[in-house]
């Protein structure tokens, strides 16, 4: 049997190593909002014959869009972000580009959002995330109502969930300044799905802990948890592996529209499996043993909890 619970602080440390760079990046750079959350226009243009980026930039400036962000998508394709424009301005822009670049242009994707819609979407996204977290916590507390202190289970599951979301957000914040990856409504969708999946995974482990606690063959809670993790270990890995296969295939071969959406899910499934094994259940033990003092012992000067040291 692998002693996972015994190494719980190593796992907490690994989580911290993964999460902290992301949090720093969040504080320093934040996230790059797409025009689901910010007013503006985004379009993907294909030119035939292919035009140079410098020429396109010049033409955009000539057309009055000095602030346009222009990115190379693939050969001859460009992503362009500009302020919110009206349908008439769009026609004018397309015509002016075609004339000045002497190239036929196809608009593959076009999206424009006004400030009112964008701010509303941000508000609803925040509400959705909060309601989802609360709903899941209530549900777990309900599902584990026969256990002593059911809210504790819900709380630990939510912390594991927040862990997973922080990993995803952190990575996307880094991707944001490194590769210009933006977050859109699908990102929020991915996050909520990760939340659902993370809890899904945690519940399976918790369920086994509940069963083994009720059985009562092992008295020590820490050992019950470790035993339960070992029992569900193969299942957790197998499930994640199968989902990861499918997501990886979609990530590599699926359409570009959902590329980063799939990446959110992929990261979320991996960290969700990790957190349900190494964090959520470990937190139950931490709580049961009241290891709070040791929890903050990373801060210099806080004495370590002697009881758990001995155990």
């Amino acid at each position, binding site marked *: 049997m692998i002693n996972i619970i015994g190494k719980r602080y190593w796992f907490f440390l690994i989580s911290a190593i993964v999460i902290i760079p992301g949090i720093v990046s969040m504080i320093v750079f934040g996230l790059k909002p797409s025009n689901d959350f910010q007013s503006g226009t985004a379009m993907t243009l294909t030119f035939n014959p292919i035009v140079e980026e410098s020429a396109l930039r010049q033409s955009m400036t000539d057309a009055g869009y000095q602030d346009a962000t222009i990115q190379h998508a693939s050969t001859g394709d460009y992503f362009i972000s500009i302020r919110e424009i009206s349908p008439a301005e769009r026609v004018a822009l397309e015509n002016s580009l075609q004339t000045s670049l002497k190239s036929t242009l*196809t608009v593959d994707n076009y999206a424009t959002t006004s400030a009112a819609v964008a701010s509303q979407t941000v508000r609803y996204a925040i509400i959705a995330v909060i309601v989802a977290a609360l709903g899941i916590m209530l549900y777990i507390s309900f599902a584990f109502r026969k256990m002593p202190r059911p809210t504790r289970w819900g709380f630990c599951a939510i912390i594991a969930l927040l862990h997973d979301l922080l990993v995803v957000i952190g990575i996307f914040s880094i991707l944001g300044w490194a590769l210009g990856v933006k977050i859109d409504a699908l990102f929020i969708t991915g996050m909520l799905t990760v939340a659902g999946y993370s809890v899904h995974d945690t519940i399976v482990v918790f369920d086994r802990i509940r069963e083994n606690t009720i059985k009562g063959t092992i008295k020590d809670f820490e050992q019950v948890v470790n035993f339960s993790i070992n029992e569900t270990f193969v299942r957790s890995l197998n499930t994640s592996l199968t989902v990861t296969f499918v997501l990886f295939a*979609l990530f590599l071969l*699926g359409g570009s529209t959902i590329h980063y959406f799939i990446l959110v899910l992929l990261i979320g499934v991996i960290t969700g499996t990790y957190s349900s094994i190494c964090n959520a259940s470990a937190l139950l033990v931490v709580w049961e043993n009241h290891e709070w003092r040791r929890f903050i012992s990373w801060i210099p000067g806080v004495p370590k909890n002697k009881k758990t040291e001995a155990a």
Partner: protein
Amino acid sequence: MRRRENILFVFVLALLVIALCIVLPVNNGLIFHKDFQLGLDLKGGSYLLYEADLSKKDPSLTDAQVMAAVQTKIERRVNSTGTTEPIIQLQGNNRILVQLPGIKNISDAIDAIGAVGLLEFKEEQLDSSGNVMNDANGQPIWIPATALGSDGVTQEALTGKYLKPNVALQLDSLGKPEVAFEWNAEGAKLFGEITTVLYNNGVNSKPLGIFLDNQLISAPTVQAVITDKGVINNMTLVEAKKLILELNSGSLDVPLKVIQQTDVDATLGADSLRKSLTAGLIGIACVAFFMIVYYRIPGLVATVALGIYAAILLAIFKIIPITLTLPGIAGFVISTGMAVDANVLIFERMKEELKRGLTIKMAVQEGFHRAWPSIRDSNFSTLITCIILYWFGGTFGAFMVKGFAVTLALGVLISLFSAITVTRTFLTQMVNNGMMTNLTLYGGKHD
């Protein structure tokens, strides 16, 4: 017990046959002649969110009445552009969502749909001595042409609302496009009175200004008293077609503005569909391979169960119908993962029971019995997030978010069904019929 198991087995097989008849693309499904409904991101098209300026409405009408009228008129306009399966929905209290699938050149359509389309007839403002008054730029000032209405009391302005809805395109003698219209009874009366004044028996006749949405289209000098009909010229063919569309559907009661627009090129959509389907199939093939190698006979059964699960789910997508979007396909694929998970949970439990020395038959029963609570509890949390996502997607018309939530939720529900019904029935049938007695094939001596 046996009897019940046999009935279930037949039931599952029947379900599979029905599902296949619906899904298999023979004449769009043998018993359900309808294709999958694809979202804009897969077939291409335009998604438009219009906001109405309700401050400009007629104060005697409620917001809801105005919006309902605007919706009807927009429906008429969209239908006459020849778009197939458009979606026009009211959103909130002042927004209208329009989805136009498959349109390639969208700009003209957007103009035609969202323009107010208010046709007005105006005359030049005259000073007290009968001379035309000019504005600061030296252009004549136009004021609405009015005449006494049939009630004999109010002065009515002549606008497009008195037109019969049979405005048509015709060519003049020089082959230039013009728009021919007919007045209804009230319009004819007003037009007659107004042209009488402007014609002035041919002495110093005045022009009649024709305005569309406050833009002067033409200002022909009145050359006769006209009552029943007329033409508007001096415009291009495209402009004429747009005007006809607007006049026949009636002018909008309030101005509309595009506040959100998303276009996807149809070729890109088709490409995305092909790519994600290939990717999904490859992924699922990997899963099947893994399940069979790792779990052997139960893995094979699970793979068959997954096939049945997929057939049933796709059949449901077709029947309801659920609009398939790219994230929706991802949702479908992820729910496959959830279905696999349910099977894995059961098989791992079975293996444990076999290790404890139970017979295969007992192990199958115990495996299902014990795995069920965690399958149920774990899938419920996904359903909670799906409900919230559906709401979130609905708040701002994100069809992709909604599509994902619906397919994932349906997938989870069907995966529950498939795990406890299909996998179980197949395994018990095999065990009952003594088809498999080798424990190794069930993973009994595995690891």
